[in-house]
């Protein structure tokens, strides 16, 4: 159907037989998200230890318990309860899902976060980074063992409508992907500068036999025709 595309989409076939595309997130946004979480956790521990410090020895015991919970539980609880997102992942627009695109539950959240210990080896997440560079979906070891995947959750904003002007019938029969490209141009071009529009439309000169603004208008016309406005 489609040629090979250079992309990090992972296609998952749902039980309904539709291919869901999960855009896997690479190591860099994930590392940034981890950094944000680290800052949050340190701040959290700072506040907790200040408050519990007032309680003396009982307080210092409770502080240690809190440190344990924050260290091991922060990621697990947030990912399991908050649709696979921690605070850091939310700021970076990431989300953890199961390999089949379903939300992660407790066992998967626990597995992938416990195994962080191994991904951290020998220092600074080197093992996790190496594995995620090799894996096509950029999964680290913990992800592999838990059967999870980190994806970009935020979709790009929806593009506008194609401007309605004249309708222009394409001079030749177009293949489906060519039709899709022209329609996509019609919908996205209004967000580009006139110069860029013209530059792109010039690529289709053999079809429109016009350059510059005239070519742009003809392409818009063809998009309208393909969209069924006549």
């Amino acid at each position, binding site marked *: 159907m489609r040629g090979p595309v250079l992309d990090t989409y992972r296609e998952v076939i*749902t039980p*309904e*037989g*539709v291919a*869901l*595309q999960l855009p896997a997130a690479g190591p860099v946004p994930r590392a940034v998200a981890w950094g944000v979480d680290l800052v949050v956790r340190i701040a959290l521990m700072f506040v907790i230890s200040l408050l519990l410090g007032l309680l003396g*020895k*009982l307080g*210092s*015991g*409770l*502080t*240690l*318990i809190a*440190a*344990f919970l924050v*260290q*091991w539980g922060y990621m697990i609880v947030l990912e399991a309860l908050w*649709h696979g997102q921690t605070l850091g992942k939310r700021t970076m627009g990431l989300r953890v*899902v199961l390999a*089949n*695109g*379903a*939300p*992660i*539950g*407790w*066992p*998967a959240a*626990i*597995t992938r976060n*416990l*195994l*962080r*210990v*191994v991904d951290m*080896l020998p220092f600074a997440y080197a093992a996790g980074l190496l594995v995620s560079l090799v894996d096509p979906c950029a999964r680290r*070891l913990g992800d*592999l*063992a*838990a*059967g999870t995947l980190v994806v970009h959750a935020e*979709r790009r904003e*929806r*593009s506008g409508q194609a401007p309605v002007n004249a309708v222009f019938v394409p001079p030749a029969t177009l293949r*489906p*992907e060519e*039709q*899709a490209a022209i*329609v*996509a141009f*019609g*919908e996205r071009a209004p967000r580009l500068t006139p110069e860029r529009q013209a530059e792109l439309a010039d690529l289709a000169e053999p079809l429109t036999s016009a350059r510059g603004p005239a070519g742009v208008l003809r392409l818009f016309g063809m998009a309208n025709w*393909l*969209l*069924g*406005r006549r």
Partner: protein
Amino acid sequence: MRQEQFVARHQREWSEFEIWLHTRADARRAQGARNTGVLGDDAMPQRYRRIAQQLSLARRRGYSPQVTTRLQDMLEQGHQVLYRTPPVRWRAALEFLMAGFPRLVRSEALCMWVALVLFALPLVGITVLLQYRPELIHAFMDPVQVAQMEQMYDPSNPRIGRDSGGDWQMFGYYIMNNIGIGLQTFASGLLVGVGSIVVLVSNGMTIGAVFGYLTQIGSGGPLWSFVCGHGAFELTAIVIAGGAGLQLGLHWLAPGRRTRGQALVEAGMKGARLCMGVAFMLLVAAFIEAFWSSIASVPYLVKYTVAGVLWSGVLAWLWRGGRNRVDKDGDAR
């Protein structure tokens, strides 16, 4: 059909579904409120399937990304709602602890026995060795640690097993330290099991060195009475965590009639559930260690009796727990 007509025809259906996703998709939020939208909750799966069909139509007809992305978004969110994992229930958690966990441990009996041998052999071996060659303690520990240890288990100490710190403080310390070690013992099994083996053997050696040396110099009484109680939970938990790590490595090495990835995922899930039990056991151990084991005024006889009860309780739990029930491991996860 042209794209515009297609969109116009289904527009209403799609916005209804989007409204439903906004207002009803979050189970917790939707619980209290009534469904006032056009689309009923029970009609949602059907609508979801219709949209799935429309997406594949749109893709095949080469409609623009604008349409397919919107459909794809709706499907993705619908998928998240339809296939989400059921919420955790307290009853299920209790059932897991009483029946599911012991059954899980027994299902990996071989790894557990191997872990036990890896842990207990160096422990006992070094304990016995140090009875005859006590100077060998310096091969395992530096003098500062030895002195600290001697002081902690000094028979004249009012609190056994610590040089400073109150009960609560030590409770917190034990939780952070011991559960952390337990979880790491499991996780390092991902290194083809080698990590778990190293942790088990080295822990066995260190504990053996402490036991052997202190017994030899005559601090055996406080030490054994201190350890015997919480050891029932702590030592077994370490062995189970090691076993969980070993089975992870083993399934990775020898996946059998599955793909390696599949085997790893299954072993990982199993290990995570074992870890939940291990964490619980270590929590109990930390409690006993902080508030019971350290009391020096209790006569040894009482300590040993309580320890006997605890040990037989733990072993009976692991051996018999969940045997009389129908095996429903599948839906326990």
